[in-house]
């Protein structure tokens, strides 16, 4: 059964505003023709998602989101835009068949997900999570998740060294 029980509390109002910001940023990012506008609109979406994380009592993840996505990933993408040429970005070659098929597929996926979510009937949480849990996350990361934490740091190091090695201009190749 589909259930639409919504209580119009202050939290839901904040959620509504932030969700509208996030969806508007994402839709505009897909619709813009200039790549820089897309990157900035996507940064707006990431900031809205950080606000949603604060609303979900995940302050540490929210600030990591701002630092990592808005501060690092978007800037990296802007550097990528800067180092490549986009002379033909104004004219979109029409591929109506592919776009229509993709839109239909995405809408079908969303319909399935929406029906599944609305008909699931989630039970209420047992005891709510306390806010301001940065200390608890730190303890968790360094005790029970110590090995994944170290592995992820090794992965980051290897990925960044690999990125530098890939993007570096090779010796003897002048152009």
């Amino acid at each position, binding site marked *: 059964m589909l259930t639409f029980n919504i209580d119009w509390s202050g939290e*839901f109002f904040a*959620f509504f505003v932030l969700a509208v910001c996030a*969806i508007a940023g*994402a*839709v505009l*990012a*897909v619709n813009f023709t200039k*790549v820089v506008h*897309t*990157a900035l609109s*996507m940064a707006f979406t990431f900031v809205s998602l950080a606000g*949603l*994380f604060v609303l*979900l*009592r*995940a302050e540490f*993840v929210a600030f*990591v989101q701002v630092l*990592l*996505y808005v501060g*690092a990933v978007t800037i*990296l*993408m802007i550097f*990528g835009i800067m*180092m*490549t*040429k*986009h002379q033909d*970005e104004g004219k979109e*070659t029409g*591929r109506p068949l*592919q*776009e229509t098929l*993709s*839109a239909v*597929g*995405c809408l079908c996926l969303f319909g399935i*997900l929406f029906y599944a*979510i*609305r008909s699931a009937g*989630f*039970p209420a*949480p*047992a005891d*709510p*999570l306390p806010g301001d849990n940065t200390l608890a*996350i730190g303890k*968790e*990361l360094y005790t029970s998740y110590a090995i*994944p934490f170290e592995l*992820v740091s090794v*992965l980051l190091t290897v*990925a*960044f060294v*690999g*990125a*530098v090695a*890939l*993007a570096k*201009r090779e010796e003897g190749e002048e152009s």
Partner: protein
Amino acid sequence: MLASYLTLAAVLFCIGLYGVLTKRNAIVVLLSIELMLNAVNLNLIAFSRYGIAPSLKGQVFALFSMTVAAAEAAVGIAVLIALYRNRATVNVDEFDELRR
């Protein structure tokens, strides 16, 4: 409340999927992939707050997923720059050496 967050995450994921499938510019494709990963993070954090047993495990998972996404973006941009140096284009439908 949980259902609203999950619906928002589904909307963002579908928009990102549409961007990946239809955009020609490789940088826009990479940004759309980041959007899809962010939707998954929103799911994880919503379940860590409103799930049956709220705990910090969802937030820790989201942190790990963000780290891997950052590594993916760095390697993706590096591959893109290397490809651009060889082909002088960033359109994904012109990277078709394996098809010829």
